[in-house]
């Protein structure tokens, strides 16, 4: 029997001790009319049979050459990362409520928090949230609690922020009467202009969201936006890519003291680039960091270093008075878990790469994207959409609808990017592409060659 160790003899002795005739007698408190009867699910398969089924389905999906980013980024994952992460002692442990029997997980989370503070240049980090999109939703709710200078629940959400994040923030935070105000982006530069937020000067606004790099891969002028926000008593929520932080100014140093204080107030983002595979969209993890003054407004688990009764250092979950199992309806969030296993992977990844390795990953990704944009832009009918400086993603404009082109590329085993037609119809035939350090010259040449062929064939057919 699948995973059930009981022998017939075990069952007989256990039933005898309980004092019932059969296992079904143990369910005698369930009203008989509710009995489910036989389940309409397939019969059991052996591990070999399931392995065959899954391998066939996986093989059918193939291994295309991928040039999409849009919130999930393909990077090399060092072999030790998942070899250690899937050790049973990490994989099959629960939330470290029993601190003495969970020091491994707890110390690892403390190390993770330390690394995220270093990367973001913030004072405190939590133990992670579900993913980047839901982390932004939680950051918006947190900003409402933290910004006591204003009584409104308005959040400025630029259109250059990942549109799915905006959808998720609306779905999760919208039930608490939070109003999201849209801020447009500059069509030429592909970034959010100071002029676009200035109409809100002097108004009651809770927070401004700044994504760096933004959804188009463009770099925002984070300093002037941060200073403007702080001058208007508006908190800054930074949405950042952790890989980029090896290269880009960390949110804790955005702006100057002229706005009152330097740096973003809440930092969040998608942790997936740190050693987590694309895996059809999850599990990933969201990260969140903030200033010490807002730590009690932060959702999610937090690990602290303390001492035991003998004065030896040790780690435990702390500030639990914020959480649902203590505060119930007054909790900062209903969240219980973090994404522990993914944090394990990320901590191992950051340890292996270090600042020098991560900087190389960031620089190589930036370079490969520049190479890709250059190679594709040489093709007739393809040009870059925006002028702003970029990190590792870019919008290209085609001279014809993107969807058929992507379908033709897919037939050649190339996932050529994300069609922005639905998300940003005003951009025309816009295609979002990404290349990381995993893309070699031969990959970029293959993409450029295929795209040139497809566009030419399409032109000839017209």
């Amino acid at each position, binding site marked *: 029997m699948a*995973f*059930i*160790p*009981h022998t017939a003899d075990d069952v007989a002795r*256990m039933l005898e001790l309980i004092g019932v005739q059969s*296992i079904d007698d143990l369910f005698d408190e369930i009203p008989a009319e509710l009995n489910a009867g036989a389940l*309409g699910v397939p019969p059991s398969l052996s*591990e070999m049979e399931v392995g065959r089924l*899954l*391998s066939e389905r996986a*093989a059918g999906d193939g291994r295309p050459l991928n040039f999409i980013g849009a919130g999930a980024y393909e990077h*090399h994952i060092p072999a*030790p990362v998942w070899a*250690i992460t899937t050790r*049973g*002692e990490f994989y099959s*442990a629960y939330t470290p409520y*029993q601190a*003495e*029997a*969970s020091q*491994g*997980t707890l110390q*690892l989370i403390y*190390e993770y928090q330390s690394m995220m503070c270093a990367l973001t240049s913030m004072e405190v*980090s939590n133990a992670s949230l*579900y*993913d980047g999109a839901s982390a932004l939703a939680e950051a918006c709710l947190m900003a409402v609690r933290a910004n006591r200078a204003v009584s409104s629940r308005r959040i400025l959400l630029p259109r250059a922020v990942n549109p799915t994040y905006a959808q998720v923030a609306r779905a999760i935070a919208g039930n608490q009467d939070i109003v999201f105000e849209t801020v447009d982006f500059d069509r030429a530069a592909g970034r959010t202009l100071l002029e676009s937020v200035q109409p809100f000067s002097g108004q009651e606004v809770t927070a401004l969201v700044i994504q760096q790099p933004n959804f188009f891969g463009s770099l925002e002028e984070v300093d002037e936006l941060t200073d403007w926000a702080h001058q208007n008593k508006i908190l800054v929520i930074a949405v950042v890519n952790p890989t980029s*932080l*090896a*290269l880009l100014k960390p949110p804790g*140093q955005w702006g100057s003291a002229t706005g009152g204080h330097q740096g973003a107030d809440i930092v969040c983002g998608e942790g997936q680039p740190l050693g987590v595979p694309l*895996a*059809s*969209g999850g599990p990933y993890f969201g990260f969140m960091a903030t200033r010490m003054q807002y730590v009690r407004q932060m959702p999610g688990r937090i690990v*602290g*270093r*303390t001492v035991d*009764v003998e004065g030896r250092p040790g780690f435990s979950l*702390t500030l639990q*008075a914020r959480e649902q199992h203590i505060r119930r*309806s007054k909790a900062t969030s*209903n969240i*219980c*878990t973090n*994404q*522990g*296993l993914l944090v394990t992977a990320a*901590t*191992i990844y950051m340890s292996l790469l*270090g*600042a*020098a390795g991560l900087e190389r990953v*960031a620089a*190589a*990704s*930036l370079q490969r994207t520049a190479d890709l944009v250059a190679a594709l832009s040489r093709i007739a009918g393809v040009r870059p959409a925006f002028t702003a*400086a970029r990190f590792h993603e870019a919008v290209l404009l085609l001279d014809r609808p993107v969807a058929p082109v992507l*379908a033709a590329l*897919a037939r050649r085993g190339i996932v050529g990017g994300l069609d922005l037609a639905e998300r940003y119809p005003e951009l025309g035939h816009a295609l979002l592409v990404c290349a990381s350090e995993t893309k070699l010259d031969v990959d970029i040449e293959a993409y450029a060659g295929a795209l040139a062929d497809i566009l030419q064939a399409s032109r000839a057919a017209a």
Partner: protein
Amino acid sequence: MADLQAREPLIFELSRPGRGAGTQFPPRAAGSAQVPAHLRRAKAPTLPEVSELQVVRHFTRLSQMNFSIDTHFYPLGSCTMKYNPKACNSFAMLPEFLGRHPLGPEPQGFLACMYELQEMLQEITGMQSVSLTPMAGAQGEFAGVAMIRAYHRARNDAARTEIIVPQAAHGTNPATAAMCGCTVREIPCDANGDIDIDALKAAVGPATAAIMLTNPSTLGVFERKITEVARIVHEAGGLLYYDGANLNAILGKVRPGDMGFDVIHMNLHKTFSTPHGGGGPGSGAVGVGARLRPFLPIPVVGKDGARFRWLTERDLPQSIGRLSGFMGNAGVNLRAYIYMRLLGREGMVRVAQFAALNANYLLKRLQAAGFEAAYPSRRASHEFIITLKRENRLYQITAMDVAKRLLDYGFHAPTTYFPLLVPECLLIEPTETEAKEDLDRFCEAMIAIRREMETEPEKLCSAPHTMPVRRLDDVRAAKQLDLAWKPTA
């Protein structure tokens, strides 16, 4: 006695300038010069500089400071710490699954698995439709309550903002209600653990949005009046929300849809054995009856002829929206799918049967050893509650003391102080995958601890003694916050 790794320095303490895991670094690229100087980072972040072997050894040693299902019996009530089959991880980590970008062309093999998972979950729960998008039980709860609100709003019945929960409800229930802009009304249970029907009748009315129930309840017993509860709430215009925390207890025996529930969230990391991972990732799939189907969170896997595709806002315009950046914890869902195919219909029925057998056996043995059941007149479901209020009075021993002492005996502690309304309680859930010998060893440890209460109570009050650390100063942890390592220089 437990045998864990004693101590391990912080990874930062192993760091030396200039050291690194060089084979993991990509070749140097010029890229950074393209970033305008004022947007560039001035000083490198303080990440460790260590060799690959140091990393491997450090994190391996940290792992050895943990209890886990793979190493220890883990009877943590309400958490369903059953064996996580290795096959589920191996097949979910096939390179084609791992390498797939979520926004690429719709992968038919992967989506076939997800579609079949939705169908199996529908069948098991008696629901009409399932969305796999919520990333944990708490997010599934959020989705459920948000759908209930959307349903009432769509019927111009938006004044229904009150959620009824039993006193023993898990803390997420009231926290979720608050996140959805609802208020909570608690109702008591009677002395046998059933809902107080008169209190329920008095509580329902035109403000009732729904009742949130776990069945079997957090008290470890089946709510016998469930059909009556459903009738009362439905007649008052409210809906029934099933918190699937304890679904393991009834798998294949009784279906929430048949009990009258309109919406359910399932913790796939409990009942369907995906790993707990040291606190996540979970997956909190939601199932709904016909009334709530239009409001399901997106995306959902649909089928056009032979082709699978994601259903989005175009297909479900009344959806409560998206809860994750892509499609939830896809890899967790894949592990649950593999688990369900391994079990099949024969195996699934046995889950509840043997979970109940193990729980009732353990309860009877502990009762025989002198421990007091919180609900002695009731059958245990897949878990049960022991109350140590008498031991507390006699020996000044707390549930926490017993929990900590169990660690010394090599057992993870049961859940303590939940549910809050039973004093000095231990909530014990052995799960179906534990052998009789392991249950017996646990009983013997409890008997030995009971003896220590009488002979050397100080051994309990100061436990654990054999872990990497002794009891930690939680007050200091919360007052003198040390949440991140900082370089001293």
